[in-house]
């Protein structure tokens, strides 16, 4: 809501009061407001308020060519843009029955996992900052920057890569890239101890995060929780394993689960997942040189490309959870309809509203960040 349209309401005198968190605050990765009703410092009810980032992506995409939309999709989630490009490409490939060469698939998975590492590092920092610990934030952002350097070398862009296209990826990896990637993974593993001491086993943080924003298994299934938040409730579901895409069925990785379902469990699941991603990346470094062939299959003239009529529901596991695109083509040069189902459309709205009830006001920002919501996925 624009400030000039806000009208103060006078209520009968009571202990209750209303407070706005946001739209600019460190509790969430973007502009998003949360309206709280409080009694003392205990939240009575919370109401999510979206719309600050609404740019009409879905409508824009209906007016652009299939290939032009690749420049739009990564903007839907800034901290983790690669899954957006990949899932859009996957849906176009599914409609037009296109095969991705194996080398292209391996490079795609490499980017997806590197992007997951970068997104999780960002989340650690942000989550710690909501509890007043700023060092993990600087460390997380600094280590994420090294991943962005690798992305810059690979794709030319640090945040918006636009490197995946329907049929594969734009170009092969540069010479010596895998060595530099390996150096980065070695560096990350050498940092594991520091991170554990600073954050994950630090009693200042652990005591602050334990028991905050608890979701039990039944609630998680009822509210449509996915991704690391679901795995922090003790339910091992991962799109990469249960609905595999690309070459994930050839990779060896574990799905970390923790039963508690609180903010601490959610951050620990992400920590374990980060090192599972490192494990996947090491397998890719080992196998990629032996996978020969092109990195993409030929596509028709992209400016006069009529994707055949059809529809597809493609899903990937982003760092936030289950990300899906429902894409419809009427056989024309532009998509007829693209529906973006971001994981945060559940986490940042209904789950957050339910978890806030009964929480203390100082924990609300932590609950918001522990769900790792990305508001543009709500607004689209």
């Amino acid at each position, binding site marked *: 809501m624009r400030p000039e349209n806000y009208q103060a309401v006078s209520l009968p005198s009571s202990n209750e009061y209303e407070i706005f968190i946001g739209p600019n605050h460190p509790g969430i990765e973007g502009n998003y407001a949360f309206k709280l009703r409080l009694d003392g410092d205990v939240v009575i009810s919370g109401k999510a308020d979206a719309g600050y980032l609404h740019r009409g992506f879905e409508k824009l995409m209906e007016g652009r060519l299939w290939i032009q939309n690749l420049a739009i999709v990564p903007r839907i989630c800034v901290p983790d843009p690669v899954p957006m490009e990949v899932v859009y490409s996957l849906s176009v490939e599914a409609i037009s029955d296109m095969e991705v060469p194996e080398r292209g698939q391996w490079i795609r998975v490499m980017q997806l996992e590197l992007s997951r590492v970068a997104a999780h590092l960002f989340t650690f920092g942000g989550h710690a900052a909501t509890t007043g610990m700023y060092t993990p934030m600087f460390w997380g952002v600094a280590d994420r920057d090294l991943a962005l350097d690798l992305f810059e070398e690979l794709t030319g862009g640090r945040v918006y890569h636009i490197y995946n296209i329907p049929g594969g990826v734009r170009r092969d990896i540069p010479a010596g890239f895998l060595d530099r990637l390996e150096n980065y993974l070695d560096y990350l593993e050498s940092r594991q101890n520091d991170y554990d001491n600073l954050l994950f086993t630090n009693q200042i943080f652990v005591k602050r995060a334990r028991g905050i924003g608890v979701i039990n298994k039944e609630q998680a299934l009822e509210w449509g929780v996915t991704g690391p938040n679901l795995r922090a409730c003790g339910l091992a579901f991962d799109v990469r394993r249960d609905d595999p895409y690309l070459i994930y069925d050839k990779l060896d990785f574990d799905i970390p689960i923790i039963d508690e379902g609180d903010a601490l469990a959610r951050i620990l699941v992400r920590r374990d997942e980060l090192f599972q991603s490192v494990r996947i990346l090491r397998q890719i470094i080992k196998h990629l040189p032996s996978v020969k062939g092109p990195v993409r299959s030929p596509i028709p003239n992209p400016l006069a490309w009529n994707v055949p009529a059809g529809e597809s529901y493609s899903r990937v596991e982003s760092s936030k959870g289950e990300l899906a695109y429902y894409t419809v083509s009427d056989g024309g040069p532009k998509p007829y309809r693209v*529906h973006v189902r971001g994981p945060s459309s559940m986490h940042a709205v209904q789950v957050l509203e339910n978890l806030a009830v009964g929480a203390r006001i100082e924990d609300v920002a932590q609950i918001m960040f522990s769900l790792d919501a990305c508001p543009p996925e709500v607004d689209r």
Partner: protein
Amino acid sequence: MNCDEINIWLDTLLEEINEIKVTRKSERRVRVDVDASSLPALLELLKGKASYVHLSAISCVDWPDDEEFELVYHCWSYEAKSLLSAHTRIPRNTCEEFAHYVSIYDIYKPAGFFERDIYEMYGIYFESSPFMEKFILTEWNGPPPMRKDFDAEAYVNETFNWAEYNPDWLQEITEEGGGIEIRPEDVRL
């Protein structure tokens, strides 16, 4: 119950519902076309009896030529590891009045978000949903913007004034042969 048993059970279940067409698109994707009156009953059975507990999304597609909206309910079963997309069509009304359909919030809680989204973007009123209010487009008074008959470019031209933007620094660059030249035929939204 293992995966095979669920799938066999599901097949017998689907045969019992009227006006239903089932297409298995791939190993983990099932498409079901169902009449609008049977859809809530189908979803109730899917969730209660066939382990489809996760509503992944509800998508809406506008088909103005057929005078219809298509609603697609994507449900995922954690046990059978299969995604069922239930397609249904409801009649489309003009922008001034809402199309109507029944909410499935009592079956799937995540439906509340998606139904509110469709209500704002397409103007379909879901009866008995507790969330039928503005959420993203709180200050929007125009017609539902995702409908195919809403022309964003025409709306912008009517609502806003185009401003000339030609500052000195850009003129200098253009004179030197650089800058961005926008030809009249290229002007578009």
